[in-house]
C-alpha cells in the first residue's frame, strides 16, 4: 500500500492524518508497530556512573592548552609533587571496580585478571572483563590484539568480533583486527570458534580464520608474539592493514592511494623512518614525511 512518505515515523510524532491512522489500524500495521515501539522503549543500557566519569576527567590539563601528541594518555597532572599523590589516588580510584583495560597508542598494557591469568594488550587494544568471574565463568571481550597466559581452571573464553577462543590453562596470542581472527598457540591447546567453524590449535601452530570460514594453518617457532618484542610481522597481509598498524604504533596519519598488493615482512616500533623503509622498499613504494602528524606513501 503506497502511503505518504515516512508514515511509520509519524506514528511516533503523532502527526498522522485521520485517514492515515484509520488505514494503518485496518491493515494491522498499527498494532504491529505499537508492539515494536512498546517493547523497544523498555530497553535499557548499562547504568552510567557520572560521578566516576567526571572524576576521571578532572585529572586533566589546565584549560585551553594543547594536549601532547600522545593520544589517550592517562590522567597525569602538571606538577611533580602532585603526581605522586594523584597517582596513588588514581590507582585506588581505578583499581576498585574498573572492569576494562586499554593500551594507549604506541604502548602495551600488562596486567593480571582476578584468577592470576596474565594479559598483555598490544597498542590500541581493549579488554573488557566486566563479565569475568574468577571462580566461575571466565569470559573476556577483546578488541584488537592480546597475549594471554591463562591459569588452569574452568573454561576460559576470549570473545572478539571475529570469533572466540576457548582455553584450559595455556599461552596464546589472539589477533582480531580487520575481519580475520588469527590465533598463535605457544603452550597447551586452544579451540577457535567462528560461526560453524571450530578449529583446535596446539602449541607451535598458528591458525587464521576469515569471515567465510576459510582456514590457513602455519607453524610457529617463537614462544611469544613478536609484537611483545617490539616488532609487527605480516605474511600476505593487505597493505592497508599493515599501514593501519603502523599508524597505531607511531600515532601518525598516513595518506595512501588504494594499493591492493599483499605485504610480507616486518617493521619495528622504535624507529619510524626505518619502519617506513621496511614497508615501502619491498613494495616499490616511496614515502614523504609531510609534518609531525602526516606521512604520504606514493608509488604504484
Amino acid at each position, binding site marked *: 500500500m503506497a502511503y505518504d512518505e515516512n508514515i*511509520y515515523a509519524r506514528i511516533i510524532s503523532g502527526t498522522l492524518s485521520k485517514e492515515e491512522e484509520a488505514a494503518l489500524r485496518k491493515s494491522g500495521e498499527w498494532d504491529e508497530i505499537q508492539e515494536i515501539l512498546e517493547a523497544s522503549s523498555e530497553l535499557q543500557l548499562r547504568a552510567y556512573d557520572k560521578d566516576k566519569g567526571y572524576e576521571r576527567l578532572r585529572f586533566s590539563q589546565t584549560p585551553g592548552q594543547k594536549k601532547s601528541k600522545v593520544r589517550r594518555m592517562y590522567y597525569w597532572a602538571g606538577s611533580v609533587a602532585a603526581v605522586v599523590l594523584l597517582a596513588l589516588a588514581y590507582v585506588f580510584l581505578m583499581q576498585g571496580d574498573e572492569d576494562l583495560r586499554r593500551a594507549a597508542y604506541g604502548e602495551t598494557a600488562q596486567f593480571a585478571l582476578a584468577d592470576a591469568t596474565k594479559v598483555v594488550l598490544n597498542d590500541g587494544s581493549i579488554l573488557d572483563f566486566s563479565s569475568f568471574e574468577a571462580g566461575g565463568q571466565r569470559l573476556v571481550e577483546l578488541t584488537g590484539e592480546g597475549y594471554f597466559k591463562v591459569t588452569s581452571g574452568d573454561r576460559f573464553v576470549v570473545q572478539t568480533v571475529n570469533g572466540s577462543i576457548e582455553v584450559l590453562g595455556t599461552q596464546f596470542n589472539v589477533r582480531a583486527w580487520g575481519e580475520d581472527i588469527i590465533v598463535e598457540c605457544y603452550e597447551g591447546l586452544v579451540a577457535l570458534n567462528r560461526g560453524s567453524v571450530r578449529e583446535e590449535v596446539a602449541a607451535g601452530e598458528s591458525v587464521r580464520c576469515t569471515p567465510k570460514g576459510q582456514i590457513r594453518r602455519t607453524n610457529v617457532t617463537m614462544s611469544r608474539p613478536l609484537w611483545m618484542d617490539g616488532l609487527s610481522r605480516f605474511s600476505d597481509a593487505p597493505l592497508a592493514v599493515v599501514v593501519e598498524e603502523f599508524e597505531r604504533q607511531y600515532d601518525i596519519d598516513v595518506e595512501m592511494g588504494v594499493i591492493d598488493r599483499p605485504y610480507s615482512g616486518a617493521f619495528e616500533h622504535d624507529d619510524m623512518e626505518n619502519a617506513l623503509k621496511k614497508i615501502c622498499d619491498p613494495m616499490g613504494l616511496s614515502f614523504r614525511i609531510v609534518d609531525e602528524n602526516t606521512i604520504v606513501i606514493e608509488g604504484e
Partner: protein
Amino acid sequence: MGVCEEKIYKEIYYKYSEYLRNFLYYKSGNMAVAEDISHDAYMKLWENCGKVEIEKAKSFLFTIANNLFLNRANKSKVVLKFEKSVRQQSDTSDPHYLMQKDEFKRRLELAIANLPENQRVVFLMNRIDKKKYREIAEELDISVKAVEKRMHLALVELRKLHKGV
C-alpha cells in the same frame, strides 16, 4: 570564562555525557569504545573551552565524538547488548503469553542490532534516550526529514519480525 569555568564544564558533563556515551554505543556496539571516545570528546571540549560558546557545547561534543569514531582504525561488527529487564510483579498474565513476550523481545533486540547504523542510531535515540526528532536532527546534524526517513525505514525492517514466528 564560559566553558572554561569548572562549574559550567561540570554541568555540561552531567547533562550530556550519558547521552553521548549512549549515542556512541548505538553506533559501535562496544561499551569500552563508547566510553573511551566520549571521554576524549570531553577532553577536547576542555582543551578548546575558550573557543566554544556554552550553547554550542552539545553540538561540539556530538560532532567531535562522531569524527573520533570515524577516525578509529578498526571498525568492528556491532554486538549491541541491553540490560535484562526486571519483570513487573504485577504482571499476572499466563506464563505462555509472558514467554512469547520475552521471545519477541529477544528477537527484537537482535533485529535492532542488525539494522544499518544510520537507522539503528536514530531508532535507539528515540526509544531509549526518549529524544524527539528535532533534537536528534540537531545532534546528528541532519534534517528532521532525514531523521523521520531513517526511523520509518527502521520500523519497516523491524516489522518483518511479525512475519513468520
